C-alpha cells in the first residue's frame, strides 16, 4: 500500500462519515445521500484496486484504467458545475421576483 492510498482512503472515509451524518441530520435527502455514498465508495475501491478500472478501460477502448477514472471524474465535475450554475441562476431570478414583489407592494 502506498502512502497516497492511505491518505486518500482516510480522506474518503471521513467524507463518507460526514455524508452519513448530514443525512441523519436531514441536511441531505435520500437520493443525494445514496449518490454521494456511491461516488465516494467507487473512489475508495479505485484507490485500492486500480486494476478494476482496467476492465472499463478495455471495454471503452481507453489505454489505461486510471485514465478512464480521470475522464469520468472530469465529466462528473462538469456536470455538477453546470447544475450548480443553473441552480444559482434560478435562485437569482427568484430573489429578483421577491425583491420586485416587495417593491411593488411597498411603493
Amino acid at each position, binding site marked *: 500500500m502506498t502512502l497516497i492510498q492511505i491518505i486518500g482512503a482516510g480522506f474518503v472515509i471521513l467524507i463518507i462519515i460526514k455524508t452519513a451524518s448530514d443525512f441523519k441530520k436531514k441536511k441531505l435527502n435520500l437520493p443525494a445521500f445514496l449518490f454521494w455514498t456511491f461516488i465516494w465508495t467507487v473512489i475508495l475501491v479505485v484507490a485500492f484496486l486500480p486494476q478494476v478500472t482496467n476492465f472499463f478501460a478495455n471495454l471503452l477502448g481507453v489505454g489505461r484504467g486510471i485514465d478512464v477514472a480521470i475522464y469520468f471524474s472530469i465529466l462528473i465535475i462538469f456536470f455538477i458545475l*453546470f447544475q450548480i450554475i443553473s441552480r444559482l*441562476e434560478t435562485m437569482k431570478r427568484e430573489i*429578483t*421576483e421577491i*425583491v*420586485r414583489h416587495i*417593491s411593488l407592494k411597498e*411603493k
Partner: protein
Amino acid sequence: MDCEKIQGNFSYNGLTNYSAELSIMRIYAIIPAYNEERNIGKVIEGIKKYTNNIIVVDDGSNDGTSKIARKEGVKVYRHIINRGLGGALGTGIKAALSENADIILTIDADGQHDPEEIPNLLKPIVSGDADVVIGSRFLKNQRMPIFRKTGNYFFNFITFLFFGIWSTDSQSGMRVFNKKAAESLRTLTSGMEVSSEIMTDIKTNELRLKEVPIRAIYTSYSLSKGQGFWVGLKTLAKLFILKITK
C-alpha cells in the same frame, strides 16, 4: 387606448395629428437607477416635458437616489437589494403595465440620453410602424471612445450569434415598447445581459423592431458607470450561461 386603432388615421406628415395621438396615449417613462443621485434629478426634469408618468426604479442604491426622485414628484419603486439592470427594468415595466400604459419608454439614469429625442423614438410606435424602438448610438456617425465602440460592436455580434437578431446598438438603454411588446417580454430578472434577453423576446414574439438614431452624451462620469471591460467580460459569460441553460 389600443395602438392598432391609431394606425389607420395617422401619417408621418400630419404632425398635428401626431401630437393629438400622442396626447391621448398613456406614455410611461421608466428610469432604472443605481446610485445616481448626481444625475437623476436632471434626467427626470428632462423627461417631464414629454410625460408625467415617470417611474424610477431605485435598484437598491445606497445614496439619495430615491429621495431626490421622490422630491421630483415621480413614482419610486425601491428594490431592497441591488438586482441589476434587467431586474430594475422588469419591475418598472410591470408597474407601468399595471397602470395600463400604452407606451413604455426606458431611459438611463446617468444622463447619457438626451430627453429631447424622446419624440423621435415615440413616432414609429405611435404610427404603428413598430412594436419596439431602439435608440441607436451608432446610426449617426458620432464620436465615441474607441474601446466602447469596439466593445459594442462585439456585443452586437454576439447577440446576433446567440440570439439571431442584428441591431446596431443591442446594448442601448433607450428603448420604447408598445403595450403588446411590453407584455410579451418575459419577466426580466437579469443584470446587464438584459439587452440580449430583450432581443430574444423580440425575435421569438416576432415584434417589429425599428432603430432610431440618438446622440449619446458621454461624460467621464457616465463612462465610469457603463459596461467597462471586466463587466463586459462578465456579461459575456452570463450570456453564454443564459444560452446554454435555456
